[in-house]
């Protein structure tokens, strides 16, 4: 636990000290988006990096959380926390329902199935205009508890930072537990772990549901933070963005996910100076990173610095 404890302290340090250097609300906005995205990425990494499964449709779960919260608070006047929990529950139920048949598939078939699920969800969101406002989106109210609302970037930053710390601790704990070792065993060789007595299906299902629920909760919070939702939040491109954050940062590395999210969230901001060349630049950066650092940034850098993976 020692190595990750140091990492955790570093993360806490950065999160606490960051407000001292962020000059204005826009920088807070970027930091908040990074923190929230990182929560999803960490959950997705548990699935992709540690358990070795693929999901190209995770934005769909995020969309359920986001739209669930928006519709329950907006059209039915539910308190935001209740809406968030209800949406997370619904997402968990859906994930549980589809997990078993989907996780029986392997490799590209699994990718296709998750892709299909994500796209179906986003199509439903686009079409059910009466509920979701359709392609033009819908506004979302603030997030709060009986009268007190989270207002302003600084308050949201606090919430996002705390959430990120919680999720990181949760993930690190999980990885270091017997359950976590079982997951990594499944990644290494599913047949071998089954032979060793690991109930691979049960584990895969649990991780799938966990990562889906994490996405849903983050989706709900993001919706309240941004204040406006469009179907793109559940779309195919967003799913790909999430997978990219995990893969670029480093599969099977919690801090890698955070770094990958930071880079991929800030990259469009940095590339905005390239007026028209962004897609091209993004594609090239993606290819180069994956070719030369195939295990992602953090694990590859760890290797290069001689620490090596255990």
């Amino acid at each position: 636990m020692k190595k990750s404890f140091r990492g955790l302290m570093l993360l806490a340090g950065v999160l606490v000290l960051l407000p001292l250097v962020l000059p204005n609300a826009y920088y807070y906005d970027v930091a908040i988006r990074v923190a929230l995205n990182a929560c999803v990425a960490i959950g997705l990494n548990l699935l992709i990096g540690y358990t070795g499964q693929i999901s190209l449709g995770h934005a769909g779960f995020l969309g359920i959380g986001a739209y669930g919260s928006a519709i329950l608070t907006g059209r039915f006047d539910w308190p935001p926390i209740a809406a968030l929990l209800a949406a997370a529950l619904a997402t968990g139920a859906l994930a549980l329902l589809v997990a078993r048949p989907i996780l029986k598939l392997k490799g590209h078939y699994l990718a296709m199935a998750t892709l299909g699920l994500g796209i179906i969800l986003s199509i439903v969101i686009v079409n059910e205009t009466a509920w979701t406002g359709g392609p033009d989106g819908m506004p979302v109210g603030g997030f709060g508890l009986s009268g007190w609302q989270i207002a302003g970037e600084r308050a949201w930053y606090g919430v996002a930072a705390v959430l990120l710390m919680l999720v990181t601790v949760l993930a690190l704990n999980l990885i270091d537990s017997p359950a976590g070792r079982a997951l990594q065993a499944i990644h290494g060789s599913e047949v071998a772990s089954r032979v060793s007595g690991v109930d691979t299906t049960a584990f895969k299902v649990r991780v799938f549901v966990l990562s889906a629920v994490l996405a849903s909760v983050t989706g709900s919070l993001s919706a309240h933070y941004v204040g406006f939702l469009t179907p793109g939040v559940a779309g195919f491109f967003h799913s790909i963005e999430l997978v990219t954050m995990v893969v670029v940062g480093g599969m099977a590395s919690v801090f890698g996910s955070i770094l990958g999210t930071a880079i991929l969230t800030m990259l469009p901001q940095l590339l905005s100076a390239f007026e028209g060349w962004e897609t091209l630049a993004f594609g090239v950066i993606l290819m180069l990173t994956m070719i030369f650092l195939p295990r992602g940034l953090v694990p590859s850098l760890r290797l290069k610095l001689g620490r090596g993976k255990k």
Partner: protein
Amino acid sequence: MLSQFLQFLLSGVTVGATYALAAIGFTLIYNASGVINFAQGEFMALGGMAAVFLANAGVPLPLAIVLAVTVATAVGMLVEKLAIEPAGRAEVVTLIIITIGASLTIRGFMQVFLGKGSHALPPFSGEAPIAILGATLLPQSLWVIGVTGAVVLMLSWFFGRTLTGKAMLATSYNKLAAQLVGINTRFILLLSFGLAAALGAVGGILIAPVTYTSYDVGVMLGLKGFVAATLGGLGSGAGAVAGGLVLGVAEAMTAGYISSAYKDATPFVLILLILFFLPQGLFGKKATDRV
């Protein structure tokens, strides 16, 4: 009633033939390398856009088409050489991200240098619709269906009767064994990418007169081609064609008889159902894992 059904069927088959061409490209590359090439749609866009660009620059249409296909083939081989080969034996997810990066690069390239507008090619044999029992079909659709059929025949001849084709099949069955019998698998890989790109480009050019081409037409086409290939069973050429046709017809029937709003969900609902009951797709080979 009949004419309505026939119309849905005809448009479904036309669209399906396009998906089939995209799907064959996926299958070719998957067979040779196990990689799902998310840039396949971009090869189609590249073919169409390059042909339009050359034709507008004054090059006679047949020559423009040949040149466009050549350009796409070259790009396909470049992608293999520069992006796939260096990646070596990376994980499936990594390879997926690499091909996505490649697709973004090609798309970004077209966006910057060929512009963001939509373009059309002149139809190959006129625009007068052909009437069949109350339904109509465009001559260009016959071209699409016909060329797809010709491509399937050509590919089965290639894989069945030529040495190179058999070498490609051998590589897909077992790369190590193929190397052991002296097959240059690296060349085969290069060839498969080039061939897939060429087929994609042909597809893009065929549909440009009817459905237009633009720098981002590859996004949807690539996705639907992937679904079609998976539907038919990854790795099966006949499956790719079957998958494409089934997909096209299912979409048209959904739009016609159920709801046009949910037409786009049809491919994905279909794939989920198929994968739940037939995890290898319609014609895919039953996979066995070596442990």
